[in-house]
Each structure stands twice: as structure tokens, then as C-alpha cells.
């Protein structure tokens, strides 16, 4: 077991070193279009994986949450001329509020009903953004959003932005991992596995689900702030059905039950989006086909396929100290 722990530490250290040194050898295209983009996409997908994997709530409303953050940041800084950091704080609060309202509406439904309701909420927010022109400026959206500077460091610089995204992503990952291990997190997993039993034990199931959703909203909001700085603008197109599906694709490719999978899926999707153009004009068709194939073939996504292969190799070599991969709970 100590051997396993050592190997694990080595892997984490190597990964950390790679991520830290990445901007030194990567081109600007790789830093920005692959590195930074997968960071924020991964953070948003992380919030979905947390909900799906640990609470049994497959939410399609995460774009609504990160979109609200983006809109508030854009409106307050560009239109109203606020300084950046207060605007960011207000935006994150607003997103958590949106998430809480969405959760209150959907907290009594489970499984497929929950999926449908959150999907309706996600698409609703898209139409509301289109319609509520005084705040969102309608179809064209709000342009000219740029990253601020922090302690004199200009975040518009790609390398600096990359490191900030890395810090936020690591923080989000550690925060979610921590929460899943607290009594609250364990209760959520209990609710995922049997909400009636948890209710019978005296837990307020609805309140826990709302709290979990609000927490996931906070995580998605962090991704939303990075996203609006990365894109420099926000419009209804940033939260339409294609984006909803993008987040889902990331989570499913990464495997809906592993937190690290969020970034595996995010890197896979950004690479696909960046390079699929060389193969075909129909990028969305390709993404859709990959998505359907992964769903049909492996419930654990790419991470699941990787683990499967790893386990086969180990068992072929005659030693596998690890238990078999857990089945996905599709609640």
C-alpha cells in the first residue's frame, strides 16, 4: 500500500511540475486556447460532476449559473463602470442566488425529472438573456470585458492568466474534494443512494440538495468569471443549448463520477474543437458522435476506459491491489 501511495505522490508531483512549467515550452495558442480554456471549462464541468456523482443530481442548469456570473461581471464592469473585484464578488453572489432559486424549484424532483427541469431552467435563462435587453443588451450581448490586474500583475497577459486559472482550478478541485469528505458530503452520497432512507433517518433531504446545488453554483461561478474574461464578451450564444451540451460532453467524456475527470474531458473537448476543423467542417456532428459513442460504450467516460485498460494490464501481469471500478450511479 505504501508503494501505491508513493507512486501516487510521484504522479501528482509530475503533473504539478508539468502544469507549472507548461507556459515555458508551450506556444501561446496552446497556453490560451487549450490550457486556459480547459481550465475554466473543467471548473464548470467539475460542478456538474460533483452534483451528478456525489448527489445524484444531473443538472443541465450549470450554464445558467456560470452565464449569470458572466453577465453580472460584464454589465457591472463594462456598462456601469464598477471596479473589477467588487463586481466579481457581486457576480458570484448573484450566481449562487440563481443556483439556489433553481434548486428550490427542482429540489423535489429526482432522476430524469430533475434533468428535465434543470434543462428547462438552463434554456429559460438563455431566452431571458435574449429578452431582458436593459441588462443583457439582447442578442449582441456585452463586449469589451477584459481581465483586470491583481497586485500589479496584468492578467491580460496569457501566461499570468494561465497561472491564475491554474490556481482557481486547483482551489476548486481541492474545495470540492474536501466537501465530499465532510459529514455533509457523506450525507449527500447517502441521498444519492437512497433519498427515502435518508429522509426516514430524519435528514432534511430537500435542504441538503439545495445546499449542494448552491455550493456547485459557487464552483460554476468561479468558472464563469474566468470564462467571461477569457472570451472578452458574453452573449446569449455563450449559454445556448450547444454550450449546455458542451458542459455535459466534458463531464461525460471525463466520466460522470471522478472529479479529476472534469479536466480530462475539458482537454479532450478543447482539442477536439481546435483540431476537428482540419478533418471535417462538421465539428458538432463529430462531437455529438463521440458523445453518443462514449455513452453507449463506457459509463465511466475516458477515465473509465483508461482505468479499464489499466486494470486489464495489471491483472494480466498478475497483481492488482485495487478494487474494481465502481459502477456509475445513474440515479
Amino acid at each position: 500500500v505504501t508503494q501505491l501511495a508513493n507512486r501516487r505522490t510521484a504522479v501528482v508531483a509530475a503533473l504539478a511540475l508539468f502544469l507549472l512549467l507548461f507556459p515555458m515550452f508551450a506556444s501561446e495558442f496552446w497556453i490560451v486556447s487549450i490550457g486556459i480554456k480547459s481550465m475554466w471549462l473543467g471548473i464548470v464541468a467539475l460542478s456538474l460532476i460533483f452534483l451528478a456523482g456525489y448527489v445524484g443530481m444531473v443538472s443541465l442548469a450549470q450554464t445558467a449559473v456560470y452565464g449569470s456570473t458572466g453577465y453580472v461581471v460584464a454589465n457591472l464592469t463594462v456598462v456601469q463602470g464598477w471596479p473589477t473585484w467588487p463586481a466579481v464578488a457581486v457576480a458570484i453572489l448573484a450566481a449562487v442566488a440563481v443556483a439556489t432559486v433553481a434548486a428550490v424549484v427542482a429540489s423535489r424532483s429526482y432522476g430524469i425529472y430533475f434533468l428535465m427541469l434543470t434543462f428547462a431552467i438552463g434554456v429559460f435563462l438563455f431566452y431571458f438573456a435574449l429578452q431582458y435587453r436593459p441588462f443583457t443588451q439582447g442578442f449582441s450581448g456585452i463586449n469589451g470585458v477584459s481581465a483586470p490586474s491583481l497586485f500589479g500583475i496584468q492578467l491580460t497577459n496569457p501566461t499570468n492568466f494561465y497561472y491564475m486559472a491554474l490556481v482557481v482550478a486547483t482551489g476548486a478541485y481541492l474545495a470540492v474534494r474536501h466537501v465530499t469528505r465532510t459529514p455533509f458530503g457523506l450525507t449527500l452520497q447517502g441521498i444519492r443512494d437512497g433519498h427515502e432512507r435518508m429522509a426516514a433517518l430524519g435528514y432534511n433531504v430537500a435542504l441538503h440538495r439545495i445546499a449542494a446545488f448552491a455550493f456547485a453554483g459557487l464552483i460554476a461561478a468561479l468558472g464563469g468569471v474566468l470564462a467571461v474574461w477569457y472570451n472578452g464578451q458574453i452573449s446569449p450564444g455563450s449559454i445556448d443549448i450547444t454550450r449546455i451540451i458542451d458542459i455535459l460532453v466534458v463531464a461525460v467524456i471525463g466520466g460522470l463520477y471522478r472529479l479529476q475527470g472534469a479536466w480530462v474531458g475539458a482537454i479532450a473537448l478543447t482539442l477536439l474543437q481546435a483540431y476537428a476543423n482540419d478533418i471535417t467542417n462538421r465539428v458538432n456532428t463529430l462531437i455529438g458522435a463521440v458523445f453518443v459513442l462514449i455513452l453507449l460504450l463506457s459509463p465511466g467516460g475516458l477515465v473509465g476506459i483508461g482505468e479499464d485498460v489499466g486494470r486489464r494490464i495489471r491483472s494480466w501481469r498478475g497483481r492488482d491491489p485495487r478494487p474494481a471500478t465502481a459502477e456509475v450511479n445513474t440515479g
Partner: protein
Amino acid sequence: VQLATGVRSIPLPRTSRAILTTVAVAATVVFVAQFTIRELSQDSAQFITIALNGLTLGALYFLAASGFTLIFGLLRVVNLAHGAFFLLGGYIGYQVAQDTGSWVLAALAGAGAIAVLGVASQQLLLRRIQGQELREALVTLGLSIIIADLALAHWGGQPVDIQTPPGLSGATNIHVAQLLYPSFRLFVLVLAIAVGVGLWLLLKHTKTGMIIRAGVDDRPMVAALGLNVQLVFVAVFALGAALVGFSGVVGASYLSLAPGEDGRYLLYSLIVVIVGGMGSVTGAAIGAVLVGLVDQFAAVYVPTYSVLVTFGLLVLVLAVRPTGLLGRAA
């Protein structure tokens, strides 16, 4: 964070819940009645036009949502490719109408093509993961991206619409209100009523309908009785998909089709069946009329917030009846 330890949500006693519901319903009825009387006396032509817009739009929503709710009722498949099916049915109808000039042929082609597509996706994709509701829903969502993308590649981004049949292209004079109203929209209303009655007859008064209803209640038992449930599944999927394809042609003649419309019809079908109760055709009819009316009145009276008002309807219904108006607990 410890939210639990002994804290329990105390369910309202049945009587006080009933009182709350009654008060909410009564308040809504009074408000609607007052609003109707006031507006009718002030500008009756405008009021009736909006009401007709709401009703006919509701009819279109019902046509679209009936297929969705039928498939869900029996197969428990939430077909999120529903909007894409609608779009593709409309586009195929548009193509056929361009080539032949016949609206009826266009409608048949749209319905037929989507029925085939529906059966194909059920047999080739969904059957492999049958019973895993969430995975099925996600697969249909993936399917919807592919269909929408290919439709965009083939028909482009410009909106298209289908010429309405010659006899229905004009306007009908509604004498009571002294206004002219597009005949085709009234035809959609008639069509929706016909489809609704047809579905009701099929489900309640034929042997096939009996098998479908039995399948909704207890699938394993129907199979144990020696009936080929898989065949019934295919038939229902074909019928549901055909209805969606057909409504796509109707929708393309009523309004127009463009990339992105798939999302709108998917959203409205979802709201209609959530409000009406999942799997209930009657519920879908009530839900569609409610959503259509609320949508149109809100669009005129509170244009900046009409989306929120429609959303409010959904929230209100779910607060009073979590399973929708005519829905039963799953």
C-alpha cells in the same frame, strides 16, 4: 456543515394544503376573470386576437408535445432529440413542398421520415441501454446535436417556411369580434383537436390502446401475458416520432424554421408536459393551452419579462402539484 440532526420538514396537514391550493386557484380565477372583463370592454378585438394567438400556438405546442408525452408514457424515454426531430420533420416537409408543391405530401413526408428516424434510433441506440433513463436521455441529447448540425449544413442558416395549402392561405372573418384572422392558424386548432380526439380514441377505445395503457402501468406483466412488448414499443415510438415530424411541418407553415428553433420547441414541449403531467395526453392538451395563452398574453402586456412569466407558470404548477396537473407519482 450539519444541516440535519433531527431537523425534519413537517408536511402540511392535508386540510391546510387543500385550503392553500383552493385559495391560490381562486385568486388566479378571480384575477383572470377581472382581467378578461376589463380588457374585453376596452379593446375586444385586440383581446380576442391575443387569445386566438395563444390558443392556436397552444395547439401547435400540443401537436409537438403529444408525441413526446406518448413516448415517455410507455417507454420512459425522455427524448431530448425531440426538438431536432421537429426541426428535421419541418425541413423535410419544406423540401417536399418545394419539389411537389403539395402541403399534404409535405406533411406525410415529414411525419414518415421522422417515424423511420425515431424507430431507427430506438432500435439501434436506445434499445442497447433500455431502462437506464438517464443514459437514454443523454444519448438523445447527443443525437440532437448531430441532427441540428447536419440540418444546418444542408439547409443553411436562413429561415425557411412552407407555403400554406391554397384554401387556407387567406384570412377568416370572425364576425363576433369583427376581425380577420389567418385561416391556417384556425386550421391548426382544428388539427390539434382532431389529433387529440384521435389519440384519446386510440388509447381508450381500441385494443392497441389497451395494451399501451397496460404497458404504461405494468410493463413486465404485459410481457408475461405473452404480448410482444418490444413491438408495441416500436409502434409507439413510430407514432410519437411521426406526430413530432408532422408538427414540424405544421410549425414551418405556421411560423418558420431556422437553426435554433429546435431548442425552442424542445423547451416548450418540456414545459407543456411538465405542467400537464408527464405521460398524460390530456395533461399535455391542458398544459399546451395554458402555456400558449400565458406566453401570448405576457408577450403583449409584459414584453421584457414574458419568458419569466411563462417560467412562473411552471413554478406555480410545480409548487401546487409536483407531478404536474394530471401527472401521477412515478
